């Protein structure tokens, strides 16, 4: 299906901004269920691959949901609205995205409907000269070219049509200060703007990723923000990071930097279609950080959210 056909068959409501939910937290099996029922969490962001095992049927890879883990996740989240944040799609892979991920998400949707669906703008797989799919081991960003935009736009449009809920793309953090670029695209922000407009999808604005890239490449994060099509931003991520070999890493391993809270405040002032803010933390790190620190970060996000959105607009009741 090409972008035009996909857009024609996309339900109109998936092209509308999602209804506001409030402040969310990733589902992390290692965290106590009480945190999700504490009133600090309005919705849960699920990475469905974490509830799967990879199986091979001959040469075909499948991602099989593990029923016990899915049941436990649903029980922990106790009726909170859910959104999907995938990592395995590889939407920018030159030889095609990961079909096993899409098949799994079809199954997941039947078991646990979601309000919107997001993925990372990048690629982590490619086919070698023999045609075998290889995993790189880390996601890489796309070059800022018209060819890359043309690759992703129809795929993003197809995903919007397939699930009938808004599809969001996240701006990535990476460590390459100069990517191949077309002047007519205008850098990474320009690439994202072109794709979300072309596919009529939305942006998940990861403020920490934008902040990492700005710090590492010597840019002004506010200058970058001014280029973002804020009317197309439907979700925001905040997170903490750490330094390694002279680079600021998108580690999801600590408190949100103070500068990021200020940016969140500024963006929420101007981006009227934002439906949720998620504090991201790595599942391996979460138990070490502890629920008290995580609850504190959620409380801070809630203060900023409610300052701009008010409690009456959140619709956190039931899926």
């Amino acid at each position, binding site marked *: 299906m090409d972008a035009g056909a996909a857009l024609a068959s996309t339900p109109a409501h998936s092209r509308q901004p999602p209804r506001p939910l409030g402040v969310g937290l990733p589902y992390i099996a290692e965290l106590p269920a009480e945190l999700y029922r504490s009133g600090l969490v309005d919705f849960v962001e699920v990475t469905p*691959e974490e509830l*799967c*095992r*990879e*199986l091979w049927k001959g040469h075909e890879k499948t991602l*099989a949901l*593990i029923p016990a883990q899915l049941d436990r996740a649903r029980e922990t989240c106790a009726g909170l609205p859910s959104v999907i944040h995938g*990592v*395995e799609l590889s939407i*920018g*892979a*030159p*030889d095609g995205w990961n079909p096993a991920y899409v098949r799994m998400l079809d199954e997941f949707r039947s078991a646990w409907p979601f309000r919107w669906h997001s993925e990372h703008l990048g*690629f982590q*797989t*490619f*086919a*070698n*000269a023999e045609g075998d799919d*290889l*995993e*790189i*081991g*880390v996601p*890489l960003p796309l*070059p800022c*070219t018209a*060819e*890359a935009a043309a*690759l992703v736009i129809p795929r993003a449009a197809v995903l919007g049509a397939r699930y009938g809920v808004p599809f969001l793309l996240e701006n990535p953090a*990476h*460590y*390459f*200060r*100069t*990517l*191949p*670029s*077309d002047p007519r695209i205008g850098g990474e922000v320009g690439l994202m703007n072109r794709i979300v407009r072309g596919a009529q999808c939305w942006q998940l604005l990861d403020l920490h990723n934008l902040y990492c890239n700005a710090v590492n490449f010597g840019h002004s994060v506010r200058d970058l923000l001014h280029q973002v099509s804020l009317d197309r931003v439907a979700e925001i991520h905040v997170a903490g990071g750490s330094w*390694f*070999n*002279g*680079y600021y*890493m998108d580690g999801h391993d600590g408190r949100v930097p103070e500068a990021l809270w200020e940016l969140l405040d500024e963006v929420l002032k101007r981006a009227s279609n934002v439906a949720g803010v998620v504090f991201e933390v790595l599942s*391996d790190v979460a138990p070490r950080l502890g629920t008290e620190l995580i609850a504190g970060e959620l409380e801070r996000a809630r203060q900023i959210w409610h300052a701009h959105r008010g409690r009456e607009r959140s619709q956190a009741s039931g899926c």
Partner: protein
Amino acid sequence: MLTDFQRTWGLAVRAGVPPGRIPRGCTVAERTFLEGLEHSDDFKVTVLVQRSWCEHRARTAARLVLAALPEDQSRALVEEWVARGGGTSSFSASEADELLEFIAQRLPDPSPALTLCRMEQAVHRASRASATFVPVAAAGDPLLVRGHGAALVHLGESLSVLFAPGLADLHREAREDEVELWLACASPVRLSAAVAAGHPREVVLRLIAIGALEAR
């Protein structure tokens, strides 16, 4: 061209070395970028991040035995595995069997560490196989082979543990006649030949029912 560019870049990060040859299909901007990786700190740090992620996945996949080994040995094994291209799959369990075999080949035999390694490998195999396991009754005179999700681990002379995808807890103590049959099936054998060699038919059928043996 995007395909050539991404393949060349992906291979370089995966291998940890800048590309030696730039495909003709790359645009000028793509070529300039790829050529610049040779002296790029950005590339070096990305490779370090990739290595770190891959090592983390390997440590997760072989958590038990790696934790039981001296830190230097554990680190060296993980680094060698990653240098050979391991750890790139987000689903670390997918690589666990192969990684644990790699580790097992480098441990003294016999040794407590090797026993731990085989135990961990057996749990992984049985767990993965249990996701798709369907009991199949033997018909006729099938060829008996060890189940792909099964293993037998000896813990000293008096205790052997059988791992199989059809067991409720994926493992239980193996009975003596089961151990003998398992050993006899080191290479494929006809059911009739196994029975003729003195292995009770009901033991054969029991091991087939739990996936310890497969009837082909």
